C-alpha cells in the first residue's frame, strides 16, 4: 500500500552518513550565516533520494518525545462537530505528517518518457518566506525567526488549526488534549496544539545541522544562506533540465519551492518535471481515496490528502491581502484631501459648518 512503504534501512546508508558528515561537504548553519540571522534555505536534490527514511527516523528520535501525551480523558469539545484529533496512540505512523511525525518520505512510481521510475520525496514544512500561518495566526503562536525558520510556539498555540487551513500544503497537524487551551475554556475554545517541523530550531541555534540533513546517507539536502542556495538550486535545475532533454530554459519545471507561495526556504530539485510528479501524486491520492472505504467522495478525498501534501503550483497566498495595503494607505490620504479640499468647500461648506 502506498502509505505504508517498506523502509529500506540500508547498512550502507548508516555508514555513508557517518563518513559523509566527517568529510562534511555540507555547510554548517553557523558558518553559513545562521549566527547573523540570515535566512537559511535548504535545497533537496530528490533525484538522489533513495527513500531509506533515515531522515524520518532521526527526526522522530529527536523530537517525538517533545510532544507531550494528551490529558485523559480529553475535554469534550462543544459543539460536538468539533473533532478530537488524537495521534498519541498512533505515534508509529510515519507515512504522513502527524503531530508526532513532522517529516515523511513520499514513495512514488511514475512513468517518465516511457520508463518506470521511482521517486522519493522527503516532505515537511516548506518554511515560506511570508508564511500565511504566521501572518494569519490570531495569537502570534506561529512565528518566523530571523533565520527563516517558521515554527509554532506550543505554549501559546490554542490548536484552532487555522494555520493548517491557510497553509497551501496544510502542513501543521493537531494534537488535541494538550496545551494552554486546557487552562482557559477547554470545551468552548481551542482544541490542542499544532505541530510541524521547526527545522531543528534548537540545534540550528547551536550551529548544528538539522537532523534530517545530518543523517542523510546520500547528502541529498544542503542548508545555507538563501542567496547562495537559490543560485545552487537554479544551476542544478538547469543541469537536470538539460539532462532530461528539455533544454536549460525549462529549468523552472525542475524546481519546486522557489516560486511557490511567493517563495519558500525549501527548494526541491528533480530530474523529472514537477508537474509530472504532481500528476502522479494526485493519481496516488485518488487511488487511496478509492481504496479507503470512505463512502462520501469528498470526505475520502480530504482523508487522502490529510498530512500528505501535493506538489502543484501555488500562487502567493498573501498577495491579495498585500495588494489591499494600497487601499489602507490611500484611504486616509483621500479622506483628508476630501476634508481639506473642494468637497469641504461645497454644499454646506466651511461657513455653513461652523457652529
Amino acid at each position, binding site marked *: 500500500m502506498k502509505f505504508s512503504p517498506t523502509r529500506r534501512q540500508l547498512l550502507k546508508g548508516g555508514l555513508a552518513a557517518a563518513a559523509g558528515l566527517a568529510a562534511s561537504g555540507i555547510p554548517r548553519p553557523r558558518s553559513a550565516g545562521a549566527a547573523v540571522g540570515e535566512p537559511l534555505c535548504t535545497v533537496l536534490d530528490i533525484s538522489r533520494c533513495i527513500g531509506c527514511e533515515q531522515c524520518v527516523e532521526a527526526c522522530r528520535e529527536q523530537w517525538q518525545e517533545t510532544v507531550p501525551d494528551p490529558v485523559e480523558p480529553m475535554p469534550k469539545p462543544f*459543539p460536538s*462537530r*468539533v473533532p478530537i484529533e488524537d495521534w498519541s496512540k498512533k505515534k508509529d505512523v510515519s507515512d504522513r505528517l502527524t503531530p508526532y511525525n513532522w517529516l515523511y518520505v513520499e514513495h512514488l512510481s511514475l512513468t517518465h518518457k516511457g520508463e518506470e521510475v521511482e521517486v522519493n520525496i522527503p516532505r515537511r514544512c516548506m518554511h515560506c*518566506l*511570508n508564511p*500565511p500561518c*504566521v*501572518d*494569519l*495566526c*490570531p*495569537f*502570534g*503562536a506561529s*512565528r*518566523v*525567526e*530571523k533565520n527563516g525558520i517558521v515554527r509554532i*510556539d506550543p505554549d*501559546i498555540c490554542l490548536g*484552532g*488549526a*487555522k494555520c493548517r*487551513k*491557510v497553509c497551501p500544503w496544510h502542513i501543521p497537524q493537531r494534537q488535541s488534549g494538550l496545551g494552554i487551551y486546557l487552562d482557559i475554556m477547554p470545551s468552548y*475554545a481551542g482544541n490542542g496544539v499544532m505541530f510541524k517541523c521547526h527545522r531543528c530550531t534548537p540545534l540550528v541555534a547551536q550551529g548544528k545541522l538539522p537532523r534530517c540533513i545530518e543523517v542523510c546517507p546520500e547528502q541529498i539536502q544542503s542548508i545555507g544562506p538563501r542567496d547562495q542556495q537559490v543560485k545552487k538550486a537554479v544551476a542544478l535545475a538547469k543541469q537536470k533540465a538539460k539532462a532530461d532533454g528539455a533544454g536549460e530554459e525549462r529549468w523552472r519545471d525542475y524546481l519546486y519551492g522557489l516560486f511557490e507561495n*511567493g517563495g519558500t526556504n525549501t527548494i526541491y530539485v528533480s530530474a523529472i518535471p514537477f508537474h509530472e510528479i504532481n500528476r502522479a501524486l494526485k493519481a496516488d491520492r485518488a487511488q487511496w481515496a478509492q481504496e479507503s472505504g470512505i463512502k462520501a467522495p469528498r470526505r475520502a478525498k480530504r482523508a487522502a490528502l490529510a498530512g500528505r501534501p501535493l506538489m502543484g503550483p501555488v500562487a502567493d*497566498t*498573501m498577495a*491579495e*491581502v*498585500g495588494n*489591499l*495595503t494600497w*487601499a*489602507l494607505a*490611500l*484611504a*486616509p*490620504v*483621500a*479622506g*483628508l*484631501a*476630501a*476634508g*481639506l*479640499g473642494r*468637497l*469641504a*468647500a461645497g*454644499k*454646506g*461648506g*466651511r461657513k*455653513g*459648518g*461652523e*457652529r
Partner: protein
Amino acid sequence: MRQEHPYSGPLSHWLYGIGIGLALFTGFGQMPIYKRYYLTDIPGLGWAADFYTTASLHYLAVALVLGLLAWRIGLYLRGVRIRWLWGPGTAWGWILFALLAASGLMKVLRNLGLYLPPPFIVTIDLVHMGSAMALMFTGLGVILSRRRRREKPL
C-alpha cells in the same frame, strides 16, 4: 436623530456603521470560531469560513473607516466644527482607535513579510484584539444607552 450638519447626516453615519461592523465581524472572524459555532452555515455567510476573504474584507472595511475619520479630521482642520453622530467623540474612543491603528499597522507590515520579533507580534495581536473588544463593548454600551449617545457620541 439629531442632525446638525449635512456632513454628519445618514450617509456618513451608515458608511461608518458598515465599516466598523464589517471590520469587527471580519476581525473576530480571524479566530477560527465562526465555523465551529455554525455561523458559516447560515445561508449567505459561507464566505466567513474563508480566512483569506475575511482578511481582505477586513482591510477594505478598515480603509473605509480610516477614510471617513481622515475626512473628519480634514474638515476639522478646515475649521468646520460639527457635532458628529458617529465615530469617536471622547478621549477614550480616540485612544482605542489609536491603539487599533498602531497595532493594525504593525500587523499590516508583518503581512507584507517584514520581520518582527515574535514576542512583539504576540503583544500587538493581544493589543489589537483587546482594543477591538473594548471598542465593541463601548460602542454597544453607547448604542444601548441612546440618551447617553445623544449627549456625547463615542
